[in-house]
Structures are given as C-alpha cells and as structure tokens.
C-alpha cells in the first residue's frame, strides 16, 4: 500500500508535466484544427533558454533561487511565446487555406528546424542546470516509506495553477470567449467583429509560453536535459491530448495524468505479474490502453462529437 502511494505520487508528477505540455497542443487544435508538431520542441527550447539564462546572465542570482527563477520564468515565457507567434506567422498563416496536409508538414518542418538549432546551440551534449536550485524546500514524509519532495509538490501546484488559470481564462474572459467563438467558426466570428488573426496570435503566444514554462520546470526538476527532450515529451503530451479529447482543456489534463500514472504502474507492478523488463513494455501497454480508449470513445475521454460543417 505504501509503495503504491509512492508510485502514485511518481506517476502524478510525470503526468503533471505531460498535462501542461498537452495544453499547448489542445489550444492550437481548438482554434485551428492543426496539430502543432513544433510544440514539443518549443517546450524543449524553454528548457534550453532557461538553462542559458540561469548559467550565464542570471548565474549571479542563483543564490537567491526564487528571484532568479521568477525572472527566468518571465523571460522564458516571453521568449517562447514570441517564438510561437513567429512560427505561426511564418509557417502556418500562409498555409491556412491550403488544406490540411500542408500545415502539418510545415509544423513538422518547424519542429525539425527548432531541434536542429538546439542541437547545435547545446553542442549535442547533456546540459545541466545549476545544482541545488530550490533545495531549501522540505521533503514531506507521509510515512516511513512514502516521501514527497518539496520540488514535487511545487511542480504539481504550479501545473494545477496553470491548468485552472487557463480554464478560467478561456471560460470567463472576453478574449477567452472570442477564442471559443473562433474555434467554432472563423468566418462567423469575423462577422461578429472578432479579429481572428489577433486571437490566433494570442493562442500561439499563450500555448508556447506555457510550454516554455513547463520546459523550465522540467529543467529545474530533473536537473539535466538534451535536445531530444522535446521530441519524447512532445509525443507523449500529444497522445495525452488526444486521449483526453483534443481541443478540450480539462481533457488534456486528464489525459496527461492517465498516461503518466499508467506508465508508472506498468513499470512498478509489471515484475509482480511476471513481466520482465517492464520499462520496455511500458510504452506498448500505455498505447494499447490508448487504442482501447479511442475505440470506445473515438473523440477522446472528454471530447465532444462535433457535427461536420457542410
């Protein structure tokens, strides 16, 4: 029971990261019906930019963890948000009326471009964040065997805050309402006086900015990364978004947690049911689960069936 609790906490932490990254996929899909494959690599750029800032310009501030991290977070979010808007303007907007395939290829192109630049910038090495960031946080011992580190709690709290904040933003504000309108129909929204391009730009700022923040958090939490991080996490987050029902914000969150926890449980309890080498089976089992859920609910767990427009 105690190890189960510990494994659940492990799974929640991994799932929380998947969930925040999944939000970026789901927001863009909501307004453009486009899978923004560059999202995973923008997220990795958040890790990279955070590393760059914390090890150079802000290195002197790392004694004052909190200040350094807050400044870094703001700069990283602004930078990755701008990167998202630029990519939308350069790689997606010109192709908006070009059917469905071209923008997807364009997105893949943007992903590879970002990854290759990151590879060169980081000299393809594993890069490490300054040691001991936020080490002052206490570890919470629930029992003798179960411990939650302060960093884990902080990550979960931030992830939760992002998700709730975003949900309220989309549901309660004027811009959020406009986003929902644009996701329903671009032309009708335009007739209602909504500046569709502006709304799409805002989406492409917020999604990547949150992705960049998640990237920074990953860097702080795991302490090291390399340029392939975005591909692996991006793919998992994309799947989480589909699992929960793409276009749906609570769905992305739910999908992230389901994926993170199920992966963890396969590794944790695989050996008990005679599954040798469970880490290698983990993905196979997690994705069979995905297929099963999608067969039962083709639009994802929380996805709504939208009637095709004629």
């Amino acid at each position, binding site marked *: 029971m105690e190890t189960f609790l510990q494994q659940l906490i*492990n799974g929640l*932490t991994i799932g929380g990261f998947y969930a925040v990254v999944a939000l970026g996929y789901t927001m863009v899909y909501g307004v453009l019906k486009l899978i923004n494959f560059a999202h995973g690599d923008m997220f990795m750029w958040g890790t990279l930019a955070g590393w760059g800032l914390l090890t150079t310009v802000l290195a002197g501030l790392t004694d004052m963890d909190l200040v350094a991290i807050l400044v870094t977070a703001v700069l990283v979010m602004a930078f990755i948000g701008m990167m998202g808007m630029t990519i939308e303007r350069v790689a997606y907007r010109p192709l908006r009326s070009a059917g469905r395939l071209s923008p997807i290829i364009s997105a893949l192109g943007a992903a590879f471009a970002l990854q290759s630049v990151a590879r060169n910038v980081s000299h393809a090495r594993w890069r*490490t964040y300054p040691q001991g960031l936020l080490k002052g946080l206490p570890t919470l011992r629930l029992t003798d065997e179960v411990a939650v580190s302060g960093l884990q709690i902080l990550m979960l709290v931030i992830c939760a805050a992002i998700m709730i904040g975003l949900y309220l933003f989309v549901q309660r504000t004027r811009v959020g309402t406009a986003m929902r309108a644009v996701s329903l129909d671009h032309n009708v929204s335009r007739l209602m006086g909504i500046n569709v391009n502006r709304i799409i730009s805002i989406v492409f700022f917020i999604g990547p900015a949150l992705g960049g923040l998640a990237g920074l958090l990953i860097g702080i939490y*795991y302490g090291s990364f390399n340029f392939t991080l975005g591909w692996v996490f991006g793919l998992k987050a994309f799947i989480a978004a589909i699992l929960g029902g793409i276009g749906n914000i609570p769905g992305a969150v739910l999908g992230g947690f389901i994926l993170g926890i199920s992966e963890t449980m396969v590794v944790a309890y695989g050996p008990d049911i005679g599954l040798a080498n469970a*880490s290698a089976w983990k993905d196979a089992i997690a994705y069979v689960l995905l297929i099963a859920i999608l067969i039962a609910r083709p639009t994802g767990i929380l996805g709504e069936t939208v009637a095709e427009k004629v």
Partner: protein
Amino acid sequence: MKRISVVIVLLAMVLGPFGLIANAQEGEPIRIGLQGPMTGDYAYEGQGFVKAVQLLVDQVNEEGGLLGRPVELVIEDDAGDPTQSALVADRLIDAGVVAVIGAYNSTATEPASEIYNENGILHITPSSTATRLTEKGFAQFFRVCFLDDRQALFAVMAMKDVLGAQKIGILHDNSTYAKGLADWTQVYAEEAGLEVAFFDAINPDDQDFTPILTNIGGASLDAVYFTGYHAQGGLLLRQTAELGLDIQWMMGNASNNPEMVEIAGVDAAAGTFITTEPLPQDLEYPEAVEFVEAFTEAYGEPPASVWWLLAAEAFNVIAHAIQETESTDTEVLAAYLHEEFKDYPGLSGPIIGFDEKGDRLGTIHALYQISEEGVITYYPEQPQPQAEE
C-alpha cells in the same frame, strides 16, 4: 535523349574521383576511417576520439608518414545509432579507407562490423565491449578494450569482496552493451553465491526513473550494479537522492565520465562505485604518461575518458601493423595481428596479443569511487585479481 547524356556526363564528373581513390597509388595518402558519435547522447566520447586519434596522425605525418605515404583520417558521425552506423560504414568504404577505428557503443559497432567484414576492411573498436561482437568469426575485427564478461566478473568480485554484499540488484538499459554486461554479471554473481534479488531495465529515452527506483528501494539490496550509460546514470543517482532512498550504487564503465557527476550533483553522486578501465592519468606506463602529456599540451586538458586513449591505441595498433608488414592489405594485416603481434607496449599497458576471435588478452579493470568532492578516485581497496581461465 539529350537530357540523359547530360546526366551521364554529370555522373561521370561526380563519380570519377572515387574511381581514382579506389586505385590508390604510391604517394597517395593512406586513409584510415574513424567512425563514432560526433552528435547525440555520446557526442562527448566521439569528439574525444577525434582529438586523440588526430593527435597521433599528426605525429606520424610529421615523422614522414607510414611506408612513405601520409596518413589521412576520414571522420564520420554515426550518432551512436545503428542505422546511421551502416550508412557511415558504406561511406567510409567509398572513401577508400584501409582500416577503420570505431564505433563507440556496441549497438553502433555491430551493423558496421558486418559491412566491414563483407568488404574486407580491417576494423578495430576502441570501446565496444559486448561479448557477441567477436562471436561471429570475423577474421579482420579486433578490439583493444576488454570484454563485458571480464568486467562482469570483476564487478561481482568487487561487490562481494570489497562491499561485502550478499543480496544484489542489476539494472541495464536494453542496449546491446548494457544488457550483455548485466547478463554476465548475473551469471557470475550466481556462481559466486550472491543472491540476485532484482534484475530489470530502464528505457534510456525516459527522463524520470522514479517508478523503478521506488521498486529498487523497496527490495532492500546491499548493492545495485547499473550497466548503462552516464547520462542515465546521473539521472538515477539524482532521483535516488530526491526520493530519499538509500541505495549503494555501482556503475559499469560506460558511466565512467565526469559528466555523470555533473548531472547527478555532487551530493547525490558521492559514494558511488564505478568499475572501469583505469583513467588515463592513473596509468603508470611510460607510453600512457607521454600520451597524456602530449594530449594535455595540444588541447589544454587531459583526456577525460579512457575510451579516447583506447581510440589512440587502436590507431597505434593499425599503424604498427602497417609498418611491420609493409602492407595495407587487410588479410596480411589481420594475419599479422592474430599471429605475430605480441607484447606490444600499449598506451593502456602491454598488449599481450589478440586471441583467435580478435579479443585482447588479459584484463585491466579497476574499482573507483566518487569522492565527497565529486571526483572519480581510485579506490584503495581492490578485489583480488581473478585467475586467468
């Protein structure tokens, strides 16, 4: 029709030089290939290969080359990836190399070794230690490092004799090399009467190993031997500390890299044991000291990993064989290495010779521990040397 003839002329222009290379003449450079991971997870090692080997190539050329011909190093990047490795092998053959040094990891060496064997190119790996690489009967494949099974036996002795462990765990990462080492460790551990209470693998693409670490922590083991690479080794150590687990880690030679300490953080890494070939600066042979000095002078820092030194060793073996046989023919060179090459003063100690499979005879593994300051230091207490079989 016209278009086709233009294409043929263009093809002839492009392919012509390759024809020339294939029929290398006297005075033409002797091309030696070096394949390794210049990018990807192991880029640090691959780039170190280049530094080490280029240093010796320059020295040889300053002294007039080999057989009166200059030596040219042809470098290719396999990114540590088996698919890429096969492409790279074809490219090196097209470039007309007489011998190849590489690759770094066994996973990348395996497909390339097949291609070099088919094309009759002398192939020496400095660092791929998976046992099965030399089980295929390739007459022109050699290695200057030592086998996984030797290291496995050494690790078992270290856990048993030095740590006094009874109940151990073994963790690998599903790569050719790490799984081989893990399997051998299990065999020798059971022979030595140790209980292998945990045997599992991680997925090296993951960033989070807390699920498997929680399982290891719950198994109350005396020691856990991780046979994978240093990037994951560092993450394992860091997350062990973060979970507040008390695990005595011992790492295999692929984790013998200061970057592991950087990734883990000094506090989390301190106390971890490493089984490995000795670090370059811990070698006392005059050839080793001289090489480390030359390397330090050229690049401003000593070689960080023993694999760089062994890459240089591989080049020396090739150059020596070419000098002695006055030939660049693979069959002649391979026959020489198998039969006549004995007691050569190598950088990593005397090379007694190669056995019929192409494996280097003997063993030089040593036990290291990461100090409180995060430095990988030679451990004062070493396991008893094992009897040669």
